[in-house]
């Protein structure tokens, strides 16, 4: 039985009005210098912004987080959920002129799965093998049903690379990537610029309206904005919340916002090492008391001028998997104190709060310290450089850890690694076999309603006993010049350059 089919080209109305004419160079200001430009080896958010113009994927997402075809035309999952057949778009070429066909798709997927040091391995771990059915069809055989698979293929795991170039360059592929996106790689000067140019044989070339793209990493947000204002950039990502007013005031600038797929939260140490030897780790009531001491809206107002979307779940309210049955708890200091008393805790209870070093995180941490203090927690903030904090978290050297997650298309990507017993991001070591079973069931079940019902059962456990307190989903902030037309913020926060025009 066929369960799901995406109709060929439905969302891709190529017949754009009028003849599209490419003109000009689009200059994009990035907040960091991307890592290696090889979809198999890449791992940063900022790198994905470049890939969005360079490497097309089998599938993409639309503004409402629906999965739409890109290099694939449709997919089809067998009744037992263990075979996924993907039809590919005909006539697609890589930047080196090689055909993007079933052989290339098999090659790319196997490269993601097997290459040494591949960061995609875990994303495709359920795929046993990839077979070529015909020149435009591949079949993926899975070890177990895995409903987030197609969502995985909307990101780097779904990016196709030219087998010829990948064979020639090996692990140096990222120095001269050859993909099938709207723009081809020209040059990269680390920490200075990445230059792409329009790919004349792109399968949807009518949608491309600029000749070149120059990505410029500018770390200092003030300087990034100064570049936009002085006309040296057309668009920038990660505008500071405190600069929003200035952008709004400037008649030549436009602000674009969207809610991220990820979240900002506090990871609590339940069973990781010595520091888990406190009533806070052992008694869920103490942790609920801590949560009740927090006023998410106040944090949002004070630190972010109300820009973030406060919430208590791993997906935002606009996500179909958000559980309306579990509203964000309001601050209730009296109840928090009562819970502490009930748990037999002698206030103040000292807590070691590890906070990665950046001004916004520090400000949020200070508010949390003050609020929790009123309920009987003595929060000690320990500001730690990011790379060091990851190490400390792994070793369990924290009771609270302020951690952000950039988010994934499928809800599984926002929860499984954090809440399953063996999850690599489960720093707090929450482990409940019943919760594990629910998480695994949600992975193998198809259908949104069915999966949502499973997550509802999971949420009932996780949100009361779990190891993460979700605070808010960050608002993605972009600023661009009024000369740039057609910009839309996508849920993944990546800049789609097709459809963009420069006046």
């Amino acid at each position, binding site marked *: 039985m066929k369960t799901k089919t995406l109709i060929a080209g439905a969302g891709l109305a190529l017949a754009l009005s009028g003849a599209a004419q490419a003109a000009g160079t689009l200059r994009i200001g990035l907040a960091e*210098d991307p*890592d*290696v430009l*090889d979809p198999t*080896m890449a*791992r*940063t958010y900022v790198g994905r912004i470049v890939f969005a113009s360079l490497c097309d994927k089998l599938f993409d997402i639309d503004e409402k987080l629906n999965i739409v075809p890109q290099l694939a035309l449709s997919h089809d999952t067998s009744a037992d959920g263990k075979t996924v057949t993907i039809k590919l778009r005909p006539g697609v070429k890589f930047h080196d002129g090689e055909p993007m066909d079933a052989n290339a798709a098999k090659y790319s997927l196997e490269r993601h799965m097997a290459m*040494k*040091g*591949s*960061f995609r*391995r*875990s*994303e495709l771990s359920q795929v046993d093998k990839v077979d070529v059915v015909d020149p435009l069809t591949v079949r993926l055989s899975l070890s177990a049903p895995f409903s987030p698979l197609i969502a995985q293929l909307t990101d780097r795991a779904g990016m196709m690379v030219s087998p010829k170039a990948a064979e020639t360059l090996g*692990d*140096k592929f*990222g*120095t001269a990537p050859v993909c099938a996106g709207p723009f081809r790689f020209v040059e990269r*000067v*680390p*920490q*200075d*610029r990445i230059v792409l140019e329009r790919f004349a044989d792109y399968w949807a070339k009518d949608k491309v309206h600029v000749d070149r793209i120059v990505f*410029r*990493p*500018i*770390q*200092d947000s*003030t*300087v990034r904005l*100064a*570049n936009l*204002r*002085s*006309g*040296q950039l057309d668009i920038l990502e990660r505008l500071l919340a405190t600069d929003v007013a200035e952008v709004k005031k400037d008649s030549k600038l436009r602000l674009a916002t969207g809610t991220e797929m990820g979240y900002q939260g506090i990871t609590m140490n339940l069973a990781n090492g010595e520091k888990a030897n406190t009533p806070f780790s052992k008694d869920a009531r103490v942790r609920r008391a801590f949560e009740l001491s927090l006023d998410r809206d106040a944090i949002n107002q004070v630190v972010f001028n109300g820009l973030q979307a406060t919430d208590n779940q791993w997906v935002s309210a606009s996500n179909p998997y958000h559980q309306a049955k579990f509203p964000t708890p309001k601050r209730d200091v009296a109840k928090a104190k009562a819970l502490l008393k009930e748990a037999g805790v002698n206030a103040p209870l000292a807590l070691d709060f590890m906070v990665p070093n950046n001004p916004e995180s520090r400000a949020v941490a200070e508010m949390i310290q003050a609020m929790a203090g009123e309920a009987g927690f003595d929060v000690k903030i320990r500001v730690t*450089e*990011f*790379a*060091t904090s*990851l*190490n*400390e978290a*792994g070793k369990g050297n924290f009771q609270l850890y302020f951690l952000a*997650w*950039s988010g994934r298309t499928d809800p599984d990507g926002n929860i499984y*690694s954090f809440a399953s017993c063996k999850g*690599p*991001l489960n720093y707090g070591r929450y482990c409940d076999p019943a919760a594990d079973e629910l998480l695994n069931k949600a992975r193998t079940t198809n259908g949104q309603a069915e999966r949502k019902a499973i997550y509802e059962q999971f949420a009932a456990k996780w949100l009361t006993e779990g190891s993460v307190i979700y605070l808010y989903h960050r608002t993605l902030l972009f600023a661009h010049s009024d000369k740039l037309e057609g910009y839309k913020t996508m849920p993944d926060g990546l800049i789609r350059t097709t459809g963009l025009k420069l006046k």
Partner: protein
Amino acid sequence: MLKFLPRRLAQLVPTLFLVSVIIFLLQQLLPGDPATVMAGEENDPVVIEQIRQQYHLDQPLPVQYLYWARGVLSGDLGESMRIKKPVAELIVEKLPVTLQLATMAMGFALLIGIPAGIVSAVKKGSSWDIGANVFALWGLSTPNFWLGIMLIFLFSVKLGWLPASGFVSPLEDLGQSLASTVMPAFVLGNAIAAVLMRHMRSAMLQAMSADYVRTARAKGLLETVVVMKHALRNALTPVITLGALEFGTLLSGAVLTEQVFSIPGFGKLIVDAVFNRDYQVVQGVVLVTATVYILLNLLADIAYVLVNPRLRG
């Protein structure tokens, strides 16, 4: 007259060996595991293990050092873990940028600092002297990042004369290249000019009160000749040392200034590498910087001898 040269060159080898060991060990003190940083958000244990093997991070420290040292001796400085590019290539790419910026900054510093120092010494107590001292105080006390951002707002955002940041190679477009580096070079040069001015002033004051200057004046020489030929030549010696040291510091990368102006030079390279625990980049850059620094000191010593005949024995 340059008998010390071979000895000094021979000293270079053990010095660089020591530098390389120290930087290698210092890096190990950095908390945080490069493999974990590299593994990114997903934190996949299998990937972390593979990274450890690939970069020999699973080996004992001396073995790790030997792997690296062997590479260096055969001309291979290693590879950036983050962007998979050879470190030597990164250095070759950044060195001209830093060199241009440092040279321009030094140019500003010398053009402003030396004349200001001379004038304020010769006209001690005059309004010139006060003006020069005020300038020195300003140069020393103005933070580079603040001055940089102020210049960007004035010349890029308000007036639109200069690009706010970035770097253009002089081989690509000389005019654009100068335009893109003039602000950061001024910011860097400004601080050094202040230091040079102060040293120049005190060295000149000392020289002007020396016997040979009195003798020169007694001979009836023109004051310009007394100042420029007799006093200045002697007063320059300490200033040359200082200038060489400052130039060496500039070559090791001006971290804050490069950050503010997004200049892809050594400073930015090394800071990003430290935060990403990209060890081989840090080691390679420090080694090259140390070599340049030592060579510059050597050049300063040679210049000493050329300027001061008494050292030629």
